[in-house]
């Protein structure tokens, strides 16, 4: 056990920091500027770092990826675009795609020439994703897709989507699903922004009416969609592990500064023992998340996949984030609720997924999403119970009769 960074990692961090100091854009005002920033990062070798070299990636170690993301968080750098392309779709094509699909799609993902979204959830298939109803029907030389998707992150700007659709209604629900690559730029695909409680629209609804998918864009065999989806859900490679903590840490610093300025009964909040206890608790939790990030990176560096342990990580930080933001708004009082007009000392500068300037209010509301998306906390606890602790599966209505 040695929790010091190696001299190589320290040197690499310094190199990234220097590069960011020299290349960081002042601001990113629109998608084209974000795309340009994305390409600059890619050309410098700081994107697609973990992808295999033969497909245009960097073949970098997980720690190097984590360091780049961490330095970007420290520099408050704008996010690149195409996060689903880089994080989910690309790696899925690498594992399951045909040679033709790899040649056609991978480099364009890295260079953000084509932006991707993921077409998984449906209005009636959330936690129970395998209940999805969108259909893909074989029409000879292509498939015809009908149905509705929801919670499609980045749908409004996506050129392509990784689609799960039902191709067989006669078999058990997990076995009738197939995976496709679908062109979003066609008349049969209607994308509508979904306005969330934040007032912003990071997500979309996607309506497919006789949309066309080429035969060559089927991924894997028919009926393998569920198995492919299981692997894509496991592609969280810990790349954001350190950056996440750096964001928490800078938000915490802002919060302490605010607690020094705000007063109750004539005294600064920071002198109130109750406030101090609550801050002490949150800082402990941030640090424990950091220790756990180092543990995750140790696994990844050894080439081990965290597997179901990823559910513990996700459960831990997403539930923590809610507690953190609840305390932030408790300390900030009505300042915490402001979306406009907040005095400088009580503002929070964060890069939101859609490029707007964030606020404490936005961060608070957004923290409610973390325990729902990518497998709700309840689903994570099921996974932990069944796959790590080996507890018996529950009796489920859709399993009665032993079909699934």
């Amino acid at each position, binding site marked *: 056990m040695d929790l010091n960074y190696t001299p190589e990692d320290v040197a690499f961090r310094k190199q990234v920091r220097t590069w960011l100091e020299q290349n960081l854009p002042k601001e990113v005002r629109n998608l084209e500027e974000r795309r340009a920033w994305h390409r600059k990062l890619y050309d410098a070798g700081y994107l697609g770092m973990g992808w295999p070299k033969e497909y245009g990636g960097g073949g970098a170690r997980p720690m190097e990826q984590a360091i780049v993301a961490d330095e970007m968080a420290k520099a408050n750098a704008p996010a690149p675009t195409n996060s689903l392309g880089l994080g989910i779709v690309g790696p899925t094509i690498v594992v399951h795609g045909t040679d033709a699909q790899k040649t056609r799609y991978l480099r364009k993902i890295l260079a953000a020439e084509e932006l991707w979204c993921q077409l998984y959830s449906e209005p009636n298939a959330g936690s129970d994703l395998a209940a999805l109803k969108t259909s893909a029907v074989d029409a000879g030389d292509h498939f015809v897709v009908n149905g509705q998707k929801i919670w499609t992150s980045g749908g409004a700007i996506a050129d392509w989507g990784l689609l799960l659709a039902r191709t067989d209604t006669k078999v058990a629900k997990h076995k009738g699903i197939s995976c496709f690559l679908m062109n979003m730029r066609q008349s049969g695909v209607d994308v509508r922004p979904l306005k969330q409680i934040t007032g912003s629209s990071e997500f979309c609804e996607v309506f497919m009416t006789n949309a066309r998918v080429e035969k060559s864009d089927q991924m894997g065999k028919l009926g393998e969609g569920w198995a492919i989806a299981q692997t894509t859900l496991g592609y969280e490679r810990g790349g954001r592990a350190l950056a996440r903590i750096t964001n928490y840490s800078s938000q915490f610093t802002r919060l302490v500064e605010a607690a020094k300025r705000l007063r109750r009964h004539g005294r600064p909040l920071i002198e109130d023992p109750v406030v101090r206890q609550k801050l002490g*608790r949150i800082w402990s939790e941030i640090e424990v998340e950091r220790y756990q990030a180092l543990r995750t*990176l140790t696994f990844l560096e050894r080439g081990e996949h965290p597997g179901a342990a990823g559910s513990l990580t996700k459960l831990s930080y997403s539930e923590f984030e809610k507690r953190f933001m609840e305390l932030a708004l408790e300390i900030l009082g009505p300042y915490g609720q402001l979306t406009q007009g907040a005095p400088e000392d009580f503002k929070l500068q964060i890069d939101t997924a859609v490029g707007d300037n964030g606020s404490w209010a936005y961060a608070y509301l957004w923290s409610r999403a973390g325990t729902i998306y990518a497998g709700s906390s309840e689903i994570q606890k099921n996974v932990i119970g069944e796959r790590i602790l080996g507890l018996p599966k529950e009796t489920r209505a859709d399993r009665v009769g032993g079909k699934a």
Partner: protein
Amino acid sequence: MNFSFSDDQVLLKNSVRSALDEQCKPAHVRAMFDDTRGYGEALWSEMAKLGWLGLPFPEEHGGAGLGLVELGLVLEEMGRAAYPGPFFATVVLGGLGILLGGDAAQKDKWLSAISAGKARATAALLEEHLDWDPASTSATAEKSGTGWTLSGLKRFVPWAHVADVVLVPARSPEGLSLFLVDPKSAGVTLSPMVGIDLTNRWSEMRLDKVAISADAILGQPGSAGALLDSLLRRAAVMSSAEMLGAARRCLDMSVEYVKVREQFGQPVGSFQAIRHRCAEMLLEAENSHAAVYYAAWALTAGAEDAAVAASICKAYVSEAARKVCGDAIQVHGGIGFTWEYDLHLYMKRAKALEPLFGDVQFHRELIVRHVTSAR
């Protein structure tokens, strides 16, 4: 950067586990409830032979020269087994205190004897007001000839009734000092304090003009503040390792039990109400693991954040262990509330350690002092 145990560390953990599985079964733990000394000499000698008693001490004093990560591994296993005996008191409180503050002669005398299983030690860190801040010490040390006379009241002194030496903080004219006191000295009165955790023994220790010789002081007179802070941090982290072990045992027992206990015609572990609780217990245990071994490494390596990591560890694990052990009783149902079922051995072990070496609030205040001054 490597947050995993080395092969040697895994070997050590496994050997401690199998030795305690063999020699510290629940029947042994229970047998010691009514024992006058409260622990088994045979196991103590075995621990000396296995090198556990000298684990963190230099080889020249018969030790193994290992760090707090290794000692933490041993203590986690002891918490897991609810080992009854003065290991923590001797090796952590007494031994590390002497290692941190002793001169060559003191170390040679005590650390060699401890490593060989021939001496037991402890420290009297708490007085009647229960303030863990060493600066709050009110016991006094008056100059008397070349030595001192100590007076004061100490409480919750672990295993003092079997100790050969007790580290006692007291105020001398020079300031806070740390003395080596033989508990059999004239003027020392020990009275037992019995808690819910019968695997640990405490004493109240009354000192009434106890004569202390000139060589029975650790470090320079008036210089014990920093030494006691260091010792307290180590005790906080090492007691957290014990709490972690106790929590792991409670979790393991719970998982095994809910797989086989049936109600409504199915194992109760298939119900989400139970399964989700077990998942939360695992999360708390895993986070505690990270907190314990990060802090143990940081203290050993002298990392910049070692002090705050120790406080984070104790604050986090105290609450986590309370939750895990409490939830274990809940998922067991009625049987978990019986004396004959073993769950309460581990639950009480963790509960007894929770307020010791600084409780949650004590350490959270230290954490906030750190983050508000460093920023």
